[in-house]
């Protein structure tokens, strides 16, 4: 979906997608302002990428399981969150109430998917820990196939077309988030500020979970040396279940966050896009590293917004620039420093 067709389909987003609004009009101050705006947008995108990827890195850090169903869960999260909003929010619901409903939806979706993720760990992944990690990749990939097809069936039965974006939840986005706000003389889209705020909350919550709770201790210890943790009498299996559940829940939170973003929007195809971006972020940051994911999400977000800006202003005429740059970042990082920015050499080195 190109920005043009999206703008035609959703007139209220047209100002967001208008490339001329991004054009630098010359002059040092303007140039600086454009740079600041592109940077701010990059951080906004980075916040989204972080929310999507952090669950993946938690699960990998402790268990060495690369969860291929992560994207599918985010897709389900986007739909569930959208469902709650469409059901509750009406035409005359106030802005504050809408945002409140958004957070309720976020919490609800997190709870449901965390439970589902824990159940999945117990039922499907637990039996195959003793096999090579390849089988865990394969299993979760199979699960993602099943989730996607079930989503397609349900959406078709309910008369919501599966492939094009589902636009009802986007329409519930409050008008406040659609405009720009002046920040130090730079006009920044409020939606990005909103995403940065949520990303920050998620980051702080995960950080607190990792450093202040007992399970966080298990995770940090477990990613250093699982066998030693087990030898100390800690029930690593139970920790696995909890962490896998939380990781799945965080994927769904990322999905809910995408629901209002005109660049993403809920569709079944979201599943694979999200998965690939999450992989890029966690690998650049170092699989299993929380700090790494945070930094890498920022890098990928800024790279994304800079390349998008280069393309929309016509400086570079190559349409796939943003995607190519991001995957090139992945390849270059793996060549220079396979363990990623903050990764430990041996974690998951199997």
């Amino acid at each position, binding site marked *: 979906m190109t920005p043009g067709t999206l703008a035609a389909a959703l007139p209220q987003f047209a100002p967001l997608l208008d490339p001329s609004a991004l054009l630098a009009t010359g002059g040092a101050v303007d140039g600086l302002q454009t740079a600041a705006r592109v940077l701010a947008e990059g951080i906004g995108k980075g916040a989204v990428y972080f929310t999507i990827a952090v669950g993946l890195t938690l699960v990998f850090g402790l268990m060495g399981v690369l969860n291929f169903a992560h994207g599918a869960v985010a897709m389900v999260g986007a739909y569930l969150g959208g469902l709650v909003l469409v059901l509750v929010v009406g035409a005359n619901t106030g802005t504050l109430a809408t945002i409140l409903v958004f957070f309720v939806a976020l919490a609800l979706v997190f709870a449901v998917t965390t439970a589902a993720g824990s159940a999945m760990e117990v039922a499907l992944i637990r039996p195959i820990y003793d096999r090579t990690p390849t089988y865990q990749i394969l299993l979760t990939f199979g699960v993602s*196939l099943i989730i996607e097809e079930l989503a397609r069936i349900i959406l*078709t039965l309910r008369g919501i077309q599966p492939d094009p974006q589902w636009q009802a939840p986007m329409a519930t986005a409050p008008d406040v988030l659609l405009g720009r706000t002046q920040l130090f003389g730079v006009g920044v889209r409020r939606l990005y500020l909103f995403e940065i705020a949520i990303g920050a909350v998620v980051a702080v919550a995960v950080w607190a979970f990792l450093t202040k709770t007992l399970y966080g201790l298990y995770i940090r210890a477990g990613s250093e040396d699982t066998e030693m943790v087990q030898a100390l009498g800690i029930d690593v299996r139970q920790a696995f279940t909890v962490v896998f559940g939380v990781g799945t829940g965080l994927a769904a939170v990322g999905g809910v966050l995408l629901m209002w973003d005109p660049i993403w929007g809920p569709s079944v195809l979201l599943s694979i896009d999200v998965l690939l971006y999450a992989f890029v972020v966690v690998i650049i940051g170092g699989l299993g590293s929380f700090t790494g994911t945070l930094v890498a999400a920022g890098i990928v977000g800024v790279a994304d917004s800079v390349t998008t800006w280069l393309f929309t202003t016509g400086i570079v005429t190559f349409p796939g620039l943003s995607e190519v740059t991001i*995957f090139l970042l992945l390849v270059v990082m793996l060549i220079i420093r*396979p363990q990623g920015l903050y990764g430990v050499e041996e974690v998951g080195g199997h």
Partner: protein
Amino acid sequence: MIVGFLLYPLAYEALLATPAAPFAEAFLPAITFMVVVLYMGLFAMSFDFVSGYTGYLSFGHAAFYGTGAYFVVLAANGQVPGVPEGTPFMITLLLGAALAGLLALVIGSVSFRLTGVYFAMITLGFAQVIYELIRSWGYVSTNPTEGATVSGDALAIGVPYVDALSLDVGRLTGESVENLLGLGIDLSATVVSYYALGIVVVVCYFAMQRILHSPFGRVMIAIRENEERARAVGYATYRFKLAAFAVSGFFGAIAGGIFAAYSRSVAPDGTFYFLVTADALITTIVGGFGTLAGPVYGTLFNQGLEDVLSTESGGIATLLREGLPESVLQADLFGVSLELFVNTAVDGRAPLYLGIVFVLFVLFVPNGILGTLRDRLGGTVGKRLPDHLRRYLR
């Protein structure tokens, strides 16, 4: 197995003439699906060649499949420099495969410094970069996201420059044979293409099998089982892995090339995309990881399932719709009529059932169809089956 593939079209045509035709149409794969088994089977085999035998999961294998497919189409349209328009298909096929082999050397030389998950990810990264580049490469056609089409004559499989020993392929453009050798057997264009593609696949299969049974193949297995020990014994494992990857890329490109020749068009999503690799991966696991013929069985299973669940050649949905009485079809099922349920949850839903089967295979039959069969029989099926049969027949 080869005999089965040889006789299948004739048996299928014969069955369609009998009263059992509706059931044959519903449950047996049509010839068009069997053609897919051939090229996807070959691609899955090439994936298994490196991933199943050296243990390195190549998540970007679609890059080679796509290279072969695009090279063939571009060469047929005279768009490849140095390859004039009208060069026989067999030559462009080999050139494309060689190019993919070189590409594999380049990707592999960087990737094989990594192992496990990291190797899978870097190959995926390379493939996605190439995919995005191809999607935006205006040289291919005016609309590169849609891909390109062969504009000229049909492509022929056979001996180059010898017209009598070549067969045109393609569902609509291929040759058809009437009254074969005076036996009164007519072969449609699809069936002729099926045999022509089949010859290529069989040749590739034996070539790969030959390599795997050579000392080189033994080293590949040694790397899979214990790379450190293989290195300690004195093998330069890096070079062996690289060579295996190049060979695998070569055959993957041949699979892409015959696909392009048959379908006469290529699109980035059907060739270079991550999900093409995923298809090969799934069918390989179902058929048997580390058994060269296994992926073909897996693809056969996959295509059989897709055929049964699609309406294109009278699948199970058609059978239900026509066979069940109207009152049953309109029956209410949680607010949805049974007919609507059949239309949405059965028709064309192969990925769902394949996903379920795949998960069950990973959990309970990790060696796949052929691998498990071999474990049970204690050797390859061809060698062991006669003994077992004799024991039961006595």
